[in-house]
Every structure is written in C-alpha cells, then in structure tokens.
C-alpha cells in the first residue's frame, strides 16, 4: 500500500533527526575535547608528542569517514569491546572530529603571534596559564570560521551512519521515500531540516565573531 507523505511520515523523519542531532552533539563534545589535546600535542615542545599527533591527524584526514566508521564498528569487537551500533558510530565520529579539529586548532594556535607567548613567559606564567589565558582565547577567535564550517560538515556527515544501518535522518528519509513514492517532497523536507539544524551554528558564530571583533 502506498502511503501519502503526511504528518506521521514527517514525525518519523524527525525521530531520525533526533539521532542526527544527538550524534552531532556527542561527536562535537568528545571530538572537541580530544581535538584540543591533539592540537596541544601537535604544538608541544616535546618532539615525540608532536610526531604522534601529526600521525594521528594524518590518519583521520587521509581516510574517508565511512572507512573510519567501519573500522571502529568492526574493529572494536576484535579488541574484545562489544558496543552497540550507535556507540560505535558516535565513537567513530568523535575520533574523526578530533583529527580535523586538532588540525584546525593547531593552525590557529600557531597563528597567535609569538610575542604573545613570550610576554606570558616573561611574566612568569606557566604552561597551563599561558595556554588557557593567553593562547586559546586568541586561537578560538582565529579558528571560529573553520571550526563552524567543520561542525556544519559534521552534522551533514552523520548521514553516512545510514550506511551502517543506523536510522538517523537521511535513513529515515530513505524509508519514507520508499513507502510514499514521493522522493522529491521527502528529500526536500529533509534538506530543510538539515538546514534548520545547521542554521543556529552559523548564526551563533556570526554573533560571537562580532563580539570578539569588538575587542579591536
């Protein structure tokens, strides 16, 4: 029986949207935390840390997201860790995000003028205070456009989880399209939903950027 594309179908897609949002958030929070460590390691004075971070970044930037997700999903059980699909996907996305954010933030940290760290060192500030109070606030501002750009891509990138069988928004849309035979309406709605999810990111960043620029 062919169903029309009505409220229940939209609700089904919104159910999927919930997954999309949750996965994006989790990937960004965990990936961000890990990415910060990667960026700090990459800019550290300790050479082995720098090399290790460079390899880490290279791995995640040099392979497709889908391959990374498969590697985590099928790799974790080999290590004796059995995880549910959604957890594997979130782990994969977070690792992926940490590599990219690590590289974006490395660039921003290095873009903070040398004189800033020197002035902080000359005042006697230790590493932690230099990073937290002097370098990161300035690096954040520099990295903002690239970070938001990546976050938007991350939201859209969660769609590949559909290929592992997770019913996030794109997968829900596929299912609804199959039973309604109205792919145009379905995918147009889904496109709109992605747009709506990403809009606040762009708006917030524009506001933040404006506020930071007020500092001259």
């Amino acid at each position: 029986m062919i169903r029309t594309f009505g409220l229940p179908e939209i609700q089904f897609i919104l159910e999927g949207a919930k997954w999309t949002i949750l996965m994006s958030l989790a990937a960004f929070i965990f990936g961000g935390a890990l990415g910060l460590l990667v960026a700090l390691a990459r800019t550290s004075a300790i050479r082995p840390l720098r090399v290790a971070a460079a390899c880490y970044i290279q791995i995640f930037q040099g392979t497709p997201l889908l391959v990374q997700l498969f590697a985590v999903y099928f790799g974790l059980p080999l290590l004796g860790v059995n995880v549910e699909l959604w957890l594997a996907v979130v782990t994969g996305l977070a690792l992926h995000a940490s590599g990219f954010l690590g590289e974006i933030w490395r660039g921003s940290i290095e873009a903070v003028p040398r004189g800033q760290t020197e002035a902080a060192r000359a005042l006697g500030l230790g590493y932690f205070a230099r990073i937290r109070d002097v370098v990161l606030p300035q690096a954040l501002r520099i990295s903002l456009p690239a970070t938001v750009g990546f976050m938007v891509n991350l939201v859209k990138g969660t769609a590949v989880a559909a290929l592992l069988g997770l019913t996030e928004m794109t997968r829900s849309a596929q299912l609804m399209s199959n039973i309604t035979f109205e792919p145009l309406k379905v995918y147009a709605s889904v496109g709109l939903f992605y747009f709506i999810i990403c809009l606040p990111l762009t708006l917030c960043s524009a506001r933040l950027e404006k506020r930071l620029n007020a500092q001259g």
Partner: protein
Amino acid sequence: MSAVAARIRPDQNPQAVTDHPAQATITMSAVNKWYGKMHVLRDIDLRVNKGEHLVLCGPSGSGKSTLIRCINALEEIQSGTIEVNGNVLGRKGAKVDHIRRDVGMVFQQFNLFPHLTVLQNCMLAPRRIHRATEAEARDKAMHFLEQVHIAEHGHKYPAQLSGGQQQRVAIARALCMGPQVMLFDEPTSALDPEMVKEVLDTMIGLADQGITMICVTHEMGFARAVAHRVIFMDRGEIIESAPPSEFFGAPKHERTRAFLGQILNH
C-alpha cells in the same frame, strides 16, 4: 630628547653603585650562544649590581636582544652561567618561572594581550601566580597604571590605545609582578616620534625609584640621563663598557667611535 638630555642628576655617582660586588643581581660568566652555526653571544661576562641602570647599544644584529632575553630564559645558552638573584639559570631543575617573576620585561612591540582590557592585562599574572584576589590584583594594577598615567584607560582594549599608551601599559603590567630587575628591549623603537618622550619619561621615573634596569636603546639622551654604565656590543661581543660621560666623551674603541658617529650624526 631635549627634556631628557636637560635632566641633570648631581647625585649620580656610578662608582658608588658598582663598587659593591656583594650586591650583584645578575652575573653572566663566559656565556656563549649559537643559533645553529651562528655564534651570537661570545664569552659574555657581565655583572649588574642592585639598583644599577645599564644601557646596551650596538648595531642591529649584534646580539643585544639575545643577551637580555637570556637573562629571563626566553633564550637558552649553550655554555657559561647566568645567575639572577642567586638562582642559577641553565642548570637542570632551574626554577625558570621563579626567575621570570623577579625579572620584568618590556618588548619593542608591546605584546599586550589583545583580548584582555588594560586592567585585565595587568591583573592576569598576579592573579595566576601570586594567587591574588580580584580586589588585590585590581588595586595593584590601578596603582601602577596611575604611576604610568594611564589609569583612566583601564577598561579599554589595547587596540584602542596609541603605541605610547600601550607601551606604558606594558611597563605597568610588568611592574605588577613586583620585579627586582626590569629589562627593556628597544621600548621606543616601534613608536611614532611624538610618543617616545612619554615612554622615556616613564622609564626615568622608574629609574629614580632605584629599580635595577637593563635597557637596550639608541636613545642616547636617555642613556646620559639615567645610565650608570653604557655598554657597546658588536658581533656578539661586549666591546666597551663605561659610565656615560666617558662612553660618549672619550670612547676607547674604534668600533664604538664609528657606531656613535653613525647614530649621533644621522
């Protein structure tokens, strides 16, 4: 700098300061530094006594910045020793951050933190290092901002200030840590000419309070007015070291004379 040059200090007696070896604040012995194959500091021996004001000059690239940056361990040395207030730098386990707290530094490019207000710039280090309360740090910051006549701009961001004002904030920021030694690396070289005087006047005021100062500068009026000793460096070596009257009146070395000729008659 007529205002500076016109300043006369009848009480100035360099010998009185330099004759007390026990009071040495900074001692550099046989210090050598290389950048790769380039030998930038050659067997530097230098003692700076408590309360002494030193002016360091020399051609560009002669190693002046490198020398003072070694004193607060912004640069590493390859041989020799540097002692600051009894702490020996360069040894394993040297308390570098402790030494830096005793030594304030002012840079050519000011290096204020652009994301913090003037007041926050001054409060950061005391808050983090001395664990001062917000109120304590603010009082101290206001005290030194008043001393450099810029307290009314405390709420502004550095980008809203002129170069001369920024440099005075940088001086106040360093003073907030209560340093015993102040290092200045060409503090007026990046300033428009009309702002040089306000910064030099601030530094003279500081000198009058008796703080130990090492100042890389080509402001010879300033050197005459406050220096106990002027040191000339060339190609990584200390060529000549003398009280200003002698240094400017009767320089011993040909290279010093050539250099003075260049900067005084440009």
